[in-house]
């Protein structure tokens, strides 16, 4: 007794899954690629002398960006080797705080965000006392403003890592799903459920 209903169900569901997964990848790739057109990575470096807490500063006071929208990757490098002070980078855009983790000397931390409107947006170190000591600066975002010389356009703009990782999972899923589809639609496959239900050997 061939279980035709089970086979058709699984075949249909499997085919739908394959089509869904196949359509997933092309929809992810252009979406990620579009954002990279206006993206720039901004690198900030901290240099400070913590012995008297007077010489704390970001090495970039003003960063001119534009036109909007602009994608900013701030990589904070703590070069404050004279102490064990930790620093971070904090900014507030449209009511949302963006901050890097606390970065000990010699380490790096990063944060990414979109700036969708023009204006002046301050950034600072959120450790108490550091902002007063001078660890602050500002993004100046204009529609006509070009990327300032202080912003180093380096690094990998395209987030192809994630596209590739999603591709790996999708390909493994396709292989797994197709294995079962081909197995059940094969003429060598017999449905043994009725046999097992009757308890036959």
């Amino acid at each position, binding site marked *: 007794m061939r279980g035709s209903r089970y086979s058709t169900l699984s075949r249909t569901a499997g085919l739908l899954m394959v089509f869904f997964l196949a359509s997933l990848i092309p929809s992810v790739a252009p979406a990620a690629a579009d954002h990279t057109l206006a993206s720039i990575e901004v690198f900030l470096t901290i240099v400070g002398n913590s012995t008297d807490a007077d010489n704390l500063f970001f090495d970039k006071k003003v960063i001119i960006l534009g036109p909007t929208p602009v994608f900013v990757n701030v990589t904070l490098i703590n070069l404050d080797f004279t102490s064990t002070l930790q620093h971070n980078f904090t900014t507030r855009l449209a009511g949302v705080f963006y901050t890097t983790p606390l970065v000990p000397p010699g380490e790096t931390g990063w944060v990414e965000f979109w700036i969708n409107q023009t204006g002046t947006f301050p950034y600072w170190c959120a450790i108490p006392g550091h902002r007063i000591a001078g660890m602050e600066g500002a993004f100046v975002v204009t529609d006509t403003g070009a990327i300032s010389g202080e912003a180093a356009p380096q690094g990998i703009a395209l987030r192809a890592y994630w596209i590739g990782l999603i591709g790996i999972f999708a390909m493994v899923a396709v*292989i797994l799903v197709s294995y079962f589809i081909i197995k059940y639609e094969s003429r060598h496959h017999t449905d043994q459920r009725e046999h097992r239900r009757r308890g036959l050997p």
Partner: protein
Amino acid sequence: MTEIVRTEAPSESVTALLVIYILTFFLLFFAGLVVFGLIQGWSPAWLSLWMGIMFVGLGALIDLYRRNFLPDEMLVKVRLPKVVQRRKLRE
């Protein structure tokens, strides 16, 4: 010297063909990622990951092709009878 004992035509499943097409798309995608990464100077760890997964997909593709588009044949090699030379033993 050989003889086909049993042969069976391949199923030529449409699903298998479809999956082969999809896997081909994935292979081209990962190959493109490797080439793009080489041009962009990505780290070898990522490039080797993309290249490795490309070969995994290629293996699955070739296996699908072998199972569904090549005939299932059993070949038996017909051996000649062994010739034993006469010789004298312990005379």
